[in-house]
């Protein structure tokens, strides 16, 4: 299994500012994922972040808006840049530790943009 810690757990931000979300895993993992979950909605993959390579972004998400860092096998950050109220969402970090196909999720960061 994998234990994922996300910080902050929630935040209220002003329009136009940026927020960096941290994801720490208790074991080394190759694949890390960042998802967005809008209120009462499903999970949408933002990007896949593999250590040692550039993050791969899904359609509709761009690096300038959601820059990702992956400095090592246990840590990643997602920045939500130049925020608008439409960015209000839950942002979830997820990992596959390589033990079969199980993908684990953190508790998420609840972001509100005013």
């Amino acid at each position: 299994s994998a234990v994922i810690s996300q910080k902050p757990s929630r935040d209220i931000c002003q329009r136009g500012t940026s927020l960096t979300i941290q994801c720490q895993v208790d074991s080394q993992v190759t694949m890390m994922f960042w998802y967005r979950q809008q209120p009462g909605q499903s999970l949408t993959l933002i990007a896949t972040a593999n250590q040692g390579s550039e993050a791969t972004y899904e359609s509709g998400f761009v690096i300038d808006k959601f820059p990702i860092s992956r400095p090592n096998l246990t840590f990643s950050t997602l920045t939500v840049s130049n925020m608008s109220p439409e960015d209000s969402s839950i942002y979830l970090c997820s990992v596959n530790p390589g033990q079969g196909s199980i993908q684990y999720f953190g508790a998420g960061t609840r972001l509100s943009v005013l």
Partner: protein
Amino acid sequence: QQQVKQSPQSLIVQKGGISIINCAYENTAFDYFPWYQQFPGKGPALLIAIRPDVSEKKEGRFTISFNKSAKQFSLHIMDSQPGDSATYFCATRGFSGGSNYKLTFGKGTLLTVNP
């Protein structure tokens, strides 16, 4: 384009009853079909999963039924309990290039089990 269609959107069941949630997919290249359970304020947690080479998988009160020809799979919760009240997401896994893969989620089903 939604590749996984989940129904119903919400479901109310009496304690002890059977909860059934259905999902349909389009892409035949998917190779793994998990169900996730999410409680308020928590991240999704894997509940049960199936691969397309079997038609049914049972773990305790939870069963996945898989119909490859119809491209459908469903979650059955037997003897539903109030503690099962949560949002359930089906998902499919497909490869997105190189060795990368990704999960595509259904829209979720809010299950309420009344005591």
